[in-house]
């Protein structure tokens, strides 16, 4: 599984639930695969995707998906404590782990000795899963996403390289994407 395959799988498994994509290539890939109003592309504020997802899930009660990265989680592991404190939070927090800061030149993330899953569990996430295979990832999303009622963490090991270079940056007014996303959430209330 590579990052594009993982993101495509998330988009196929979701329809109108809010999905937050982290900074770097994840937002760019997601927008390129399908640009939908339930997507929030977090182009800056590295490390805050799960906190934004926490605020949405807490305030709307809606199942909220976060597509995070290993570099972003290493930058702000405190987001796990923030989400883990809410036992009934319907937050589905995916971390796509390629071990690299890919969009800044492919430097290694200093997390080789870190278990993100153990961190999530220790922070209060009730359901913690690890996958390294596309078929298992698809099955996990099918079975666990729809029933998510508590902070859920999925560590996805990306073992394959991307087939092509990254899609273009998220262009245009970021505020426009924000208001489209907020309007989408308003129609769901």
């Amino acid at each position, binding site marked *: 599984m590579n990052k594009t395959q993982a993101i495509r799988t998330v988009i196929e498994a979701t329809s109108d639930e809010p999905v*937050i994509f982290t900074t770097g290539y994840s937002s760019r890939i997601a927008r390129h695969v399908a640009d939908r109003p339930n997507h*929030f592309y*977090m*182009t*800056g*504020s*590295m*490390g*805050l*995707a*799960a*906190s*934004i*997802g*926490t*605020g*949405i*899930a*807490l*305030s*709307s009660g*809606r199942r*909220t998906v976060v597509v995070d990265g290993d570099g972003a989680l290493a930058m*702000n592991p*405190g*987001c796990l*404590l*923030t989400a883990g*404190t809410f036992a009934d939070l319907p937050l589905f927090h995916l971390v796509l782990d390629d071990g690299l800061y890919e969009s800044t030149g492919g430097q290694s993330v200093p997390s080789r000795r870190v278990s993100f899953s153990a961190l999530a569990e220790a922070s209060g996430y009730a359901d913690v899963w690890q996958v390294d295979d596309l078929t298992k990832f698809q099955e996990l999303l099918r079975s666990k996403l729809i029933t998510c009622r508590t902070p859920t963490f999925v560590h996805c090991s990306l073992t394959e390289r991307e087939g092509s270079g990254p899609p273009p940056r998220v262009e245009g007014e*970021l*505020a426009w*994407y*924000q*208001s489209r*996303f*907020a309007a989408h*959430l*308003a129609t769901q*209330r």
Partner: protein
Amino acid sequence: MAVLDCASTLSGALLERNFAPFFGTPCGILAPLYRRLEAAANLWTVSREDNAIGVAAGSAMAGHRPVVLMQNSGLGQSVNAIASLVVPYQIPMLMIISMRGVAPDSTTENIVMGRLTEPLLAEAGIPTATLDEDNLPAQADWAATEVIGGRRAAALLVPPNLFGWQA
């Protein structure tokens, strides 16, 4: 106005204007306000201020009118969250920021942030009002006009002694 009344007045004024929920990190200056909000509304303590900004951003996009309470030291932690998320995405929220490092707080470790706070917010394009005990309801009106009416972020700055804090 007695100092404890200031915390009650501000808490009541914010709730009357439908601000909620509240996210923040505890602060000695804000403690009386924190207690009142905890008793009267949804107030959640978040372990770091930039995460509180992130959670508030999500809450705002979900249609709420969130408030973040923090000390200005936490504003330092939150600069990137404000600069790359709140401002460019135009996410409305109210920040209530206590002012360590300005008179009568002379603690050395807070002086630099005390000096940076207002210019930093001004350069970020976030309007501010410094709370004054005689104008609290009017200043809550101002905050509501900016955040709820204007759909933008704004900040209320809290002088160290407004709620009775002493160095």
